[in-house]
């Protein structure tokens, strides 16, 4: 928040498209955010809004020819544009500086390689360890993420692990080289709440210990509340609102954020009371609307919304929201009551 510490990661005007048989899928359309050291940023938004693509872009995993990173996109790591990296720099950056945990741990672990080796691979690549050192370190890593009997477990294959343990292995791999940035792409969606808690604890502890910056991608607002300091709300390839955790949860400024927060059932809600919903379905990224992408589902839609994309309005601090409602000419609209009813 303070000017004195430079952001460790800055994403500017990130645009990514996928070329499919049906046409160009504009998955990410100008995403912009920054991340400071030790901070946890949550990116929330519904399925298909471009969260994972953003994460993959930061990891340099967008692959031609299907994937295309548009010109002028910038991802600055310590002020340096990683998109201009050469092969060597990339190899150092990936895994060494920045690590990622994917949602489906089973699919993300090589089924034919021993778990220990998958961790060692990272260690040997980035820390120049010998095989023996790496093997020892791998055991330590497993112990650190709370896997019992790590000496035995390193010699097993991923399918011999339970879901939670696999995710912990993923965490171990990601943390193996003390990355400065950790991206978690929905790391707990596939897990039970009891295990989910364990995993989040591990991530939080490691983050604190190593001063790692975390980008947590999820659509579970509960998880966000638990872990994040900053939140970016994404919709249809665009960050529609961003700000600190308090900003978003207590002072949201974008109708989508309103709807999102309200549609989550709370334990204190009355039984079978009607939930707040967002009607309809998200727009198709193949031909995204010219105007605000949320306009087709927004109760406060105005003619202007359908014609033009709103600029981000700042609300002090880092709190920004892109909505025409904050234009001086727009009618004043307050966030509706959190309880029930359609927006």
């Amino acid at each position: 928040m303070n000017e004195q510490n430079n952001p460790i990661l800055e994403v500017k005007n990130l645009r990514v498209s996928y070329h499919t048989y049906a046409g160009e899928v504009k998955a990410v359309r100008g995403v912009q955010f920054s991340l400071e050291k030790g901070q946890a940023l949550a990116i929330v938004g519904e399925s298909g809004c471009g969260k994972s693509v953003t994460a993959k872009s930061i990891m340099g995993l967008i692959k031609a020819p299907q994937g295309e990173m548009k010109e002028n996109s910038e991802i600055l790591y310590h002020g340096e544009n990683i998109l201009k990296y050469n092969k060597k720099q990339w190899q150092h950056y990936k895994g060494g500086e920045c690590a990622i945990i994917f949602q489906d741990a089973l699919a993300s672990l090589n089924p034919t390689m021993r778990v220990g080796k998958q961790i060692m691979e990272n260690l040997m690549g980035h820390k120049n360890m010998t095989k023996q050192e790496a093997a020892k370190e791998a055991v330590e890593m497993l112990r650190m993420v709370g896997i019992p009997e790590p000496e035995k477990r390193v010699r097993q294959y991923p399918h011999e692990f339970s879901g939670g343990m696999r995710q912990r292995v993923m965490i171990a791999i990601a943390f193996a080289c003390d990355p400065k940035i950790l991206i978690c792409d929905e790391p707990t969606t596939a897990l039970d709440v009891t295990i989910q808690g364990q995993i989040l604890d591990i991530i939080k502890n490691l983050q604190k210990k190593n001063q790692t910056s975390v980008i947590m991608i999820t659509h579970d607002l509960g998880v966000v509340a638990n872990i994040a300091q900053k939140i970016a709300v994404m919709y249809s390839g665009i960050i529609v609102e961003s700000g600190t955790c308090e900003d978003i949860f207590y002072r949201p400024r974008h109708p989508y954020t309103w709807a999102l927060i309200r549609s989550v059932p709370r334990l204190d809600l009355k039984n079978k009371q009607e939930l707040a919903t967002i009607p309809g379905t998200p727009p198709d990224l193949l031909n995204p609307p010219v105007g605000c992408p949320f306009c087709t589902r927004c109760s406060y839609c105005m003619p202007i919304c359908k014609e033009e994309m709103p600029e981000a309005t700042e609300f002090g601090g880092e709190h920004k929201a892109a909505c025409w409602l904050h234009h001086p000419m727009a009618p004043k609209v307050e966030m509706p009551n959190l309880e029930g009813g359609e927006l």
Partner: protein
Amino acid sequence: MAALTPEKFKVIGYTEEDANRIDRPTISYWQDAWRRLRKNPIAMGSLVVLGILLVMVIIGPHIKGYDYVSMNIAEKNQGVSSKYWFGTDNLGRDLFSRVWVGARASLIIAIVATAIKLIIGTVYGALMAHFGGWVDEVLMRIIEVINSIPSLLLTILIMMILGNNLFALLVALSVTAWCNTARQVRGMIKQLRETEYVYAAEVLGAKPLRIILKHYVPNMLGILILDTATAIPMFIFTEAGLSFLGIGLKAPSISLGVLISMGQQNMDFYPSQLLFPCLVLCIIVMAFNLLGDGLRDALDPRLRQ
């Protein structure tokens, strides 16, 4: 940028219609696959080539007006000329006409053999998957035995038992080929049987026949089409191989295989007699293969969205 006027800032809200709108045009699975295939220049190229081949196979033999059986000893072993576009063979027959007649026979044999393979394989595979248990075991063992016997032995023996005729040739060609289809169909049905939409149909009270016709068959078509696209070139090629062993079509019937095996024996002297049939064979096989590749992509559910 259009001027910002107050009218533009009137809250109008959304309509259900807009919210639930689907922008994409209505297309069926097959239209979708076709659309994807059409975007694939290689596959479309193959399709065009196959179209041309099909036309040539029908009209090719008549273009030059030479009959493909009558000999003309005086003009044997001619090279490429305006009179004989592909030259003549060692009995003075027009190779251009012969190549297309041969390609026709090869294609027909391949298509019929593929049909046999598909039908037997599908029925057999469906039986295995449907009955399961010991029926499955026994039928699987039969496939195993058939696969373990060298196919050359089977082919030759079948040609010996049934005589050297078209029927025997077809049987010999498809005798082992259907095993693979059967396996695939079995696997596919076993997989489909566990899909939720089949459970859903069952919950609705659908009878087995309905499930087979409405759910299994349409969902297997992709695999079967692919199977066809790969089987046809394989059969053309296998039939050509049999000609080298002296079994296969009888003169005056000719296939590409017969032409190639005749051409091979003259390749030192009249390479065109080998070159042209080989070329046509390669083009056919290549076209079907590339089309098959294209189909695989077009029908691949993972590539759809």
